[in-house]
């Protein structure tokens, strides 16, 4: 449970950083005319992310329930989708933020989270395409969604392998610690006999 709490607290810290960077980028791109996102959306999304992050911090003060990881990840994906929908849809410069959410969560939680992120992304990106229609051929959009599934499954596979190796290493360390204890006990038992 402590490990989960530590992970979620680090996600809160990273979220503050990402919010500042994205907010600065959105303001810059809006002023330069690259995106036509309304100011009210930029300010509103920043406020929502700030409120969500403060809420997550408050929940984490009491502990880290298991459902929290899914709520924080889904919130990140939904807010990212809103930013993308209001900054050009499929051509948005913020599309790659999806990959930050995917990689940071998959590495931390493994395959089940990678599949969860890919599923929520799939649904959210379809909603983005409905809100901001591409028009004409949708093949590229399909390929983008499939590519995301590919990256998610590969990241999940690598994370699962890494977690398995970490567990094996931990069991080796426990075995070595146990053997050391037994060796110390044996040495302590033999010492008085040697003195005689």
């Amino acid at each position: 449970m402590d490990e989960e709490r530590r992970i979620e607290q680090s996600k809160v810290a990273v979220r503050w950083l990402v919010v500042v960077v994205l907010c600065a980028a959105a303001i810059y791109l809006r002023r330069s005319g690259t995106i036509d996102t309304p100011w009210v959306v930029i300010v509103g999304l920043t406020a929502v992310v700030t409120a969500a992050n403060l809420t997550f911090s408050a929940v984490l003060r009491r502990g880290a329930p298991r459902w929290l990881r899914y709520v924080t990840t889904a919130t990140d994906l939904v807010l990212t989708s809103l930013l993308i929908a209001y900054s050009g849809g499929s051509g948005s410069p913020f599309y790659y933020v999806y990959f930050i959410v995917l990689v940071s969560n998959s590495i931390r939680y493994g395959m089940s989270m990678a599949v969860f992120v890919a599923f929520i992304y799939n649904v959210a990106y379809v909603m983005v395409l409905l809100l901001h229609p591409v028009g004409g051929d949708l093949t590229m959009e399909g390929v983008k969604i499939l590519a995301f599934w590919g990256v998610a499954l590969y990241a999940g596979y690598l994370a699962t392998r890494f977690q398995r190796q970490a567990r094996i290493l931990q069991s080796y360390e426990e075995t070595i610690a146990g053997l050391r204890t037994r060796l110390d006990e044996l040495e302590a038992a033999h010492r008085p006999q040697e003195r005689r």
Partner: protein
Amino acid sequence: MSTRHFRSRTVGWGVALAAVLVAAIVLVTWKATNPLLFLLYPVLVLGVLALLAMAMLWALRHF
């Protein structure tokens, strides 16, 4: 002697179904005119993976 829980015919049907799902993925990607069709991807992708994993594990005599 290992016991095989799946018959080769069952695994064969599984691989055939995986091929059909792959064809469906290609068809949806190529011919989709409505983004809502992309909502089929989770079922198709995870279905292909599950069926291929079953065939692979059967081939490696895990069951």
